[in-house]
């Protein structure tokens, strides 16, 4: 059978994720030390796990409503009030999703008509562009640069806006760069978008993991709530990656459409996770603070060590990634990472896996113990000295 004739063209032209490719290279090497993982190394706080056990014991395992358990939507609503000072109605503006991943997917699907353009600042999380393209839209890359600490600036954004621009996917704190955008920097972007019909999908999955000032959402700036879909989730802040739970909030007319897609594609998010997530949002402030404090110490250590050994990087203020330049080595990201694996058995992710403008950089995750980080950096140092 000639499957290429049968299978969807959109699916076939979709490139496999650069991360996946790199995983295949790294996974085959025994005793590898990895700095390549995009998820917390902490266990989910016990309070949350205990609640999930309770839910199982009590047999609360049926579907929930499509939008999600009401107490959880209420907790999300309170959370947004507390953190980004916006009021979202838990009745019709908040949807509990299968991770931030699903929220991004269904938000894009609810917005994009064929040939609509969606601006995607890069380097960025791997799924944005493929989701846009699968939906029939066109992903327009907005390359950002180390000189600006990989922030989106009006100068980068403005020339990319056309009559076909439907949306922009903003993602700060950023995976892979750790960059954050401050209020005045967001304001400069908001200024361009106010008065247009462009919708912002703001992926704020790392909002709890900031190390300077607290996170600011573009949705809380004047006039922006009505044109923003805020995406967030439990994976990073609460170390709950495997629970597959996230959420989005948007004005009711948008949320209604998103909910329809969620309802047909997913029915409802995992019930056990939803119950336990109420505990996460309402009772885990200390646990989160503890993890943030630990990440912060590692961040300082990693940034200082990398700069010392000649992999220059700016000090990221969010997420758990550092994105140093490897240009001095004279190698491309791909070459650097492959040689580093072969010669020192250390796995880091090549920057171009997050978009072409990420070439010349590598992503280092510090979601590892200090001991692990110290050993890995020592090996990277040896590697650099031997090039």
């Amino acid at each position, binding site marked *: 059978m000639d499957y290429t004739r049968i299978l969807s063209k959109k699916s076939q032209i979709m490139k496999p994720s650069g991360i996946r490719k*790199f995983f295949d290279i790294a996974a085959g090497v025994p005793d590898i030390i990895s700095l390549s993982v995009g998820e917390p190394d902490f266990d989910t706080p016990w309070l949350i796990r205990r609640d999930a056990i309770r839910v199982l014991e009590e047999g609360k395992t049926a579907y929930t409503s499509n939008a999600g358990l009401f107490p959880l939507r209420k907790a999300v609503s309170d959370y947004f009030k507390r953190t980004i000072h916006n009021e979202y109605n838990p009745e019709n503006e908040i949807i509990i999703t299968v991770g931030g991943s699903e929220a991004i997917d269904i938000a894009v699907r609810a917005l994009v008509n064929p040939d609509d353009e969606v601006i995607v600042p890069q380097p960025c999380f791997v799924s944005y562009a493929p989701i846009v393209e699968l939906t029939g839209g066109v992903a327009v890359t907005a390359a950002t640069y180390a000189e600006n600490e990989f922030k989106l600036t009006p100068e980068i954004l403005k020339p990319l806006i056309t009559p076909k621009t439907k949306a922009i996917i903003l993602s700060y704190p950023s*995976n892979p760069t750790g960059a954050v955008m401050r209020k005045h920097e967001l304001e400069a972007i908001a200024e361009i978008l106010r008065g247009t019909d462009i919708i912002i999908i703001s992926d704020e999955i790392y909002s709890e993991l900031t190390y300077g000032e607290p996170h600011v959402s573009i949705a809380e700036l004047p006039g922006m709530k009505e044109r923003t879909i805020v995406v967030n989730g439990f994976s990073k802040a609460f170390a709950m990656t495997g629970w597959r739970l996230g959420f989005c909030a948007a004005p009711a007319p948008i949320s209604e459409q998103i909910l329809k897609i969620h309802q047909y594609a997913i029915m409802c998010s995992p019930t056990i996770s939803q119950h336990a997530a109420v505990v996460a949002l309402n009772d885990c402030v200390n646990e989160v603070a503890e993890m943030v404090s630990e990440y912060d110490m590692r961040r300082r250590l990693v940034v200082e060590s990398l700069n010392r050994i000649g992999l220059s990087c700016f000090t990221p203020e969010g997420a758990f990634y550092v994105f140093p330049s490897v240009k001095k080595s004279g190698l491309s990201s791909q070459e650097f990472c492959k040689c580093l694996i072969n010669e020192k058995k250390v796995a880091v*992710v090549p920057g171009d896996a997050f978009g072409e403008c990420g070439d010349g950089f590598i992503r280092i995750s510090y979601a590892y113990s200090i001991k692990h980080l110290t050993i890995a950096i020592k090996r990277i140092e040896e590697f650099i000295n031997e090039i």
Partner: protein
Amino acid sequence: MQNKLIKLLRKDARLTNEELGIMLGISAKEIADEIEQLENNGIIKGYTAILDESKLEDTGVTAVIEVKVMPSVKYGYKSVAKIIARFPEVESVRLIAGDYDFSVTVKCPDLNSVGMFVADKISPIEGIVSISTHFIMGRYKELGREFDLDNDIRGVVSP
């Protein structure tokens, strides 16, 4: 600051002052001063290695001895504790709230010498009314460090 420093040292006292300083956002000199102060104040009593004793060639035998005391004017808890603590075989002496008074860990070369130690050195101490000895059979965690657990269940690479 001090709490954060102590927390880091509890996990790994071999971090250098430079590393500690970077992580806590102060200079190595300030770290050195803080540590000196902690030592002078008697908060930090010393530094040790966390061992998985079962992997040593000469493992020896470790026992936890529960000791019940009838304190008297002459021999209060503290003086009994001090007498016990002076024996080099003794690794720790802790006053316990509950059915007995002291939990004493001792390390001896073999079973027999634990028995001898208890009979010859602990039981004659004035004020001790009962002793119950338990032998340690396995260790899973010491001083906050888990043993033989490869905890990282994450894949090598993920987005």
